[in-house]
């Protein structure tokens, strides 16, 4: 089972990476994560973000992820020590 963290995307860095303020970590996680992590995402369910990395723009990622509360399922780390994750929308702030 992959480690899972939750939090808000605070700064969009590129069309596939962003900074995240981590507010929740799954109790069963194998590792502990910092309050601020850099995420490289390989997959997302956010509809406004193109699944094709070539067509995906920073603006799409800004609109779809900036300040949003999200869930990151961690599959590993890349060469820059960033978390490689599947990113999805998480829960709801209201009805």
């Amino acid at each position: 089972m992959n480690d899972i963290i939750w939090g808000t995307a605070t700064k969009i860095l590129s069309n596939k990476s962003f900074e995240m303020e981590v507010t929740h970590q799954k109790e069963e996680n194998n590792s502990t994560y910092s309050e601020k992590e850099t995420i490289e995402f390989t997959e997302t369910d956010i509809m406004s973000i193109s699944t094709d990395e070539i067509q995906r723009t920073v603006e799409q990622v800004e609109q779809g992820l900036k300040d949003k509360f999200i869930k990151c399922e961690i599959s590993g780390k890349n060469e820059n020590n960033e978390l490689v994750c599947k990113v999805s929308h998480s829960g709801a702030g209201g009805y």
Partner: protein
Amino acid sequence: MSICWKPKIITNLDLQTNYFDELLSGKIPAIIVPKVLDQQECQVLVDRIMLNNEISIGLGSTKKIGESINSYISNKMEYFKNVKQSNHCLGKIFSHNDPREKMLSVISGLSGKEIQFAKEKSLSYSKGMIRIYDPGDPVHVHRDNASFEATNFSISTFSEQFSAVLHLQSARYGGSLTVFDKIWTRSDEKFRDPEFGYSNDVIDGAFCTSITCKQGDLVIINPNNYHIVNTVEGNLSRITFGFFFGHGNSYLSAWS
């Protein structure tokens, strides 16, 4: 905020004052229109709701009939597909006496604008939601904000959002609505609960007012103010029917 932060109770439709602007500015926490339905009308609807076999569990763990877009933020087509069924179900429950007609009429009278349920191209949005709060059900503090949370839906472009809730059955004890004098901001997302709503830390120190909801009353709030339904106690569930509405073009549009 003064200690006189009380709901505006409308006894006759006063078109001289725009109470919706007062809701948006935070001058008042709620508009209450008493006795939109009488006791007998409410009881007939409650009986029909409780006999219905399409009650399911919704966001915040309350029982519900109807759909809300926030359950489908990443699955828009599924929303519109399921809404066909839920709108049909609501139509059956309300076939003899549709409370939506009175609610829309009251809102139109208060705002001086036409109101209708929203559509996206030819697809109908959900025409409201019945919620059943059973004794002991917890409801997290939350806010409702489609423009931030449901950006794939056309109703997210509306400049304002209001919540209209008709109280069909009041709890024996508890079940009051508490509205906080605190508007959601983007930076509050760090207080989110992974499943639904927010940590109570988000409303720490905020002024609030509690509204005891009476059967038949229509309560309208600015749902971008944090709010919470207090735990229902006793042997009666709190049963409501509600929807959101906002400014589309020159008229108001409603959805859930």
